[in-house]
């Protein structure tokens, strides 16, 4: 999945900077993941797009919960 489109739509309101695709870490039920997501490298703000939260991420949550 490529979220470069989202990266151009949103900007960091805190510093006014651009978002760029950066490796973002996630953890859930002893599982660790890294995903390239739009994020503000200066402020640490990350963007989890709706499509990711309701799609692949929800799927991964369910799989981990069943382990």
């Amino acid at each position, binding site marked *: 999945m490529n979220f470069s489109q989202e990266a151009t739509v949103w900007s960091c309101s805190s510093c006014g900077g651009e978002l760029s695709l950066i490796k973002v870490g996630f953890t859930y039920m002893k599982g660790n993941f890294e995903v390239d997501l739009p994020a503000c490298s200066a402020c640490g*703000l990350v963007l989890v797009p*709706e499509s990711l939260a309701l799609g692949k991420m929800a799927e991964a949550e369910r799989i981990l919960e069943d382990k």
Partner: protein
Amino acid sequence: MEKNELVAWENKCIQEESPECTSACPLHVNAKLFLKEIQKGDWDAAYKVLNKTMPFPGILGRICDHPCEERCKRGPVGGPIAIGALERLCVERYTGKKRVQLLPRKDHRIAVLGAGLAGVTAAWDLLKKGFIVSVFEPGDRLGGSLWDLPEQLLPREVIIEELSILETMMADIRLGIKLDKVLFEQLCEEYEAVILDRDSLRGIDLSLKLDNDGLIATSPATGATGRDGVFAGGGTRFRGGFSPVMETLEGRKPALSIERLMQKVGLEFGRENEGPCTTRLFTSLEGIDPLPRVVAADSVKGFTEQEALLEAKRCIQCECMECVKKCLYLERYKGYPKKYAREIFNNERILLGAARHYNVFVNSCSTCGLCETVCPNDFYMGDLCLEARRTMVDQKFMPPSLHEFALQDMAHSNGELFSLCRHEPGKTESAWLFFPSCQLCGTTPGEVVSSYRYLRDRLSGGVGILLHCCGAPAFWAGREDLFKEALDDIRAAWAEMGKPRIITACSTCLNIFQEHVPEMKPVSLWDIILQVGIPDSACAHGITGNTVGVVDPCVTRHNPVDQKGIRRILKALGIQIEELPLSGEMPECCGYGGLMYNANPALARDVVARRTTASDNDYLAYCAMCRDNFASAGKRVSHLIEHLFPAVTGGDPAARSWTSWSERRANRGRVKEMILRDLGEREEAQAEEYEKLKLTISPDVMKRIDARRILQEDIRKVIFHGETSGKKMRSRQNGSYLAYLQPGNVTFWVEYSPEGDGFTVLNAYCHRMNIVGIMQ
């Protein structure tokens, strides 16, 4: 679940029991599968089905006296399937190889004396199992009395061809042998076991005990003669007439006994169902078209293939599936309770690291009990699933997402924003204690408060109030700890109030109290109303055509008294009643029960959607969640309390929309506030800063975020965080903001834009995965 519990559960479901045809067949030929293959036009597969169980299918397929037909369930609806005639056609048209799978050769040598149908069957069975078999026959050919059957029924070349299979199975065949006592004694010495075909040996003295028919006496279960290693069978023609299929069984039985003897296991153990037996399988004939039996145009030649296909298609493929036919949940997982019990058992034994695929299944059952009502054997999935949920909680593999929202909702009801226990204003004693239920307060706060005022007017001795959740969500979630805590709180409050009689307006609360706190002697609000009189405020407003389909809640299944009471109230209000198909003892759940809506929201939506199609009339519910769930599915539905204690007269309660989870909580708070006001008390609630944010949410967005179980409280927290910390993103497209926050286990995302002195919520979504942050 322990192994013995699994066995008990499995035994309760009868779906895998043999159909009548197979049970009636002495050989247990799978006639259902045989007919299914013909229905598909696969005659070779049909032949294979026969070949699996029948010895010499070419012979038996032609001459079988088909006792299966007598017990065929098709009998009363058009006449039994002509299984015998179909078998005949099947073996007649079979031109493929006649294969018999032999097991590895064993060292045991067995002698068969007499080669009638029983004798050759015994030889066939033993050879298949790998034994070394010698057949001794006085005549010059195998088959005995088979040769006496009419040529037209059993052509001679078929006898020869079929029996020659024994040679390919490596039988040692000796013809023209004089069968007498000398030979018998000699064979008893040389062979490990001997089988006697009584059809060929009648009248020959072997010094064995005889029965009344002059046949060698045997144990009916095993064919044992009383002499070690000597078994006998056959001779049905001397006992009421030759039955080819019983004669075959007569050969099969001693063969199986010999196998057991050689394996040194008990001869008799577990053989009760050998031969014709009864079956527990239930098959409903409801809706089966009574198609008459197909008659062959040429009665001499029998069925053509076309006729046979038509006849086979009359087979209804007997099975039970009564519960699966009624329950969308059981249907959706493509099995039936016996299979599900096994899956649940296995699910509890998954090795660490592997996926437990049945977690959601276990937690999707609404526990409504419709399965138990329709099951001929009272299988209740609810008990099975609730027990499994408790195990999941105990063994710590209950997925946290499945119940968290529901348990948080329960915690809200039992927290300071709703929970309350007071005597009636101005009184210090309570003869009664009104327990309106958290979900009813959540959907009809004004009506609940009016009903409380009514109870205070009509009942003497003081009517106290107890606002609390009965603990049902914890019970359904398998959380015995939380359930006990809720009930302990209620029991303590009830005792503190002087043990008054509990009045509840919710069927689930009533059910929970009756089952778990019977000493409270709970009674329903509707029952009290019938006793003390319909309230003056009652009106039948807003009902289309003045007729309603009454939606009985699933928990009233075993409470016909309350169900009748509701109908009496409706009649008193002048409302016409339509009885829906799933009413009385047949109601299905609305999707709330068992927390189905929480563990499997898509299924819960489908269950309700299906139920809305049962009638075009408005529905009338007397369970808060039924009302809200039907309303959410777009059905015109009102709650009884909206007619008994209407906020306004002449309104249209059935037009009232669905209720969001946020509204439910706000409404509960409102009930508490109104009751405290009546008591002259005031809640000094300290509102958090974020709670003061003004939100505008369109109905579309509201519906979407509610389905995602996002509360307005969560949204306020996120926006407050974004606005006060500045940690938010801004859209270059429309200037809206996006902020996120993880107040508990869930991270909420809200897209919003400032509007006036508040905010318009454009979207919200959430996930449970924790954000660690940017990786270096």
